[in-house]
């Protein structure tokens, strides 16, 4: 059985990153970021960056509260993109050098998606 794509057809060239990065919770996306290699992160970042305006225009066609569930994975992919873009543009490494244990930092996410 062919696995159903996670992303809308227009963006099927990003589908290769979906399983890895389009995770539904902020916690899962953060964990994926800090566990990824720079190669994986760079590949993802470089693939999405040229399409930013297109993806965002597509997602912005309805308010957040009306975003259909078929577009949720694409939004999760973009939220993951924002997370890893810090790594590429500012930090140079998937995680901060020495910081408070992330496992001890309890985070309650109020945002809807």
């Amino acid at each position: 059985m062919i696995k159903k794509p996670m992303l809308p057809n227009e963006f099927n060239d990003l589908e290769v990153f979906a399983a890895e990065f389009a995770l539904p919770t902020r916690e899962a996306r953060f964990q994926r970021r800090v566990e990824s290699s720079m190669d994986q992160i760079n590949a993802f970042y470089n693939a999405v960056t040229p399409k930013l305006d297109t993806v965002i225009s597509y997602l912005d066609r309805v308010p957040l509260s009306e975003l259909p569930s078929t577009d949720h994975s694409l939004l999760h992919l973009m939220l993951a993109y924002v997370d890893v873009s810090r790594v590429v543009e500012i930090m140079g490494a998937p995680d901060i050098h020495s910081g408070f244990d992330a496992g001890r930092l309890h985070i309650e996410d109020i945002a809807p998606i």
Partner: protein
Amino acid sequence: MNSPINAGLSAQKWTLQYPELGTGPLPHSPNTSAAYFEKEREKLFKKAWLLLCREDEVPNIGSYVVKQVSVLETSVLLVRGNDGVVRAFHNSCKHRGNKVVMGSGEKVGEDKGFMCGFHGWTYDLQGKLRSILDEEDFFELDKSKLNLKPIHCELWRGFVFINAMDKPKQTLAEYLGDWGKSIEPFPFERFELVNVYSSTVGCNWKIALDAFQEGYHALTLHGKTAGGVFTPKDNPFAHLINVKLYPEGHRHASFPANTEFVPSASVQLGIKHAGNNIYAYSEADASRNLAGLNQAGSPEWSFDINVIFPHVQFLASDSFYVTQSFWPISVDQCYWELRQYLPKSESVSGRIAQQNSQAALRDVIREDLVTLENTQTVLRSGAIEQMQLNDSEILVRHSYKKVDEWINSPD
């Protein structure tokens, strides 16, 4: 652009404007002495107005939250009554003291009243005793004395403050004083809560607070995460560009911004869809200078730090506000909670922009937190007696002085 206003502001020695503070070293003992901690409990935390939460946490009639407030040695039940008024009580049944809303940790709910799960006594949303199971089996009961014991509770701009005294020495408005008046017009309503961060940290609450009352650490600790956004050329160490210390103990300071700093692409994306960002600042003009902010009117301004005495830090700019509470648990333990508020957004692009600020704050906060236990563990022996404070650390100095004043107050 080198701003002459900013150059003048950042060249000042703010500490010298408050000669009563002195400029010498301060002792570490208030952070390591269990005896001092108990004095803080009895003479400061059990007497001051303490910020508990925002009234949004009890939005409807019958909404309640329970907060275990270790430093007050009680559990606080906050409830919105039938008359819409928010009230606070000791979460303790007048029968034999059991928690009316049981369990450890924070509780949230909505109900028409409360029933103690031990012997079934019930109370209404105003804390009044409603019924006692098998009442005839008791002897003389003065039911007028059996309502839930109230804790003084007042609101300011949607924030709920409590006071553990039987008769607070001041109203909340008097306690907040001129600091409160200066911040009152800030448009809190424009922002929405997006995250709550919390952790127990193995350090004195003041060690934790201090880490967030100065920017001297920004270059070193956040060099790789926050970039050069806070250090303009004419102010390379991010000296404060405004400081105001209040007699009630509150304090306020403004931080500089490097308006020539070019934000990275994803931060620019955040700005494009939210108008602004925690880590990028355009020249401060009327649109950025929301009421209560940037009181010196500097064009190279990033955000303001406020501290509501004794233990709440409140950061604000046009692009976010944050509240941080440093709740004492013991001399070397505290409970830290941070609430991040970002501009309200209904669009998907706005949500993506919010994520940029959330992700950045998370990395930076973990850098701030790591120094806290590192500091406390090595101070414990008492072998190192003093700390040295520079002018940029004036808020730290003010904090120790004001805490000490309350500890040593005769009443």
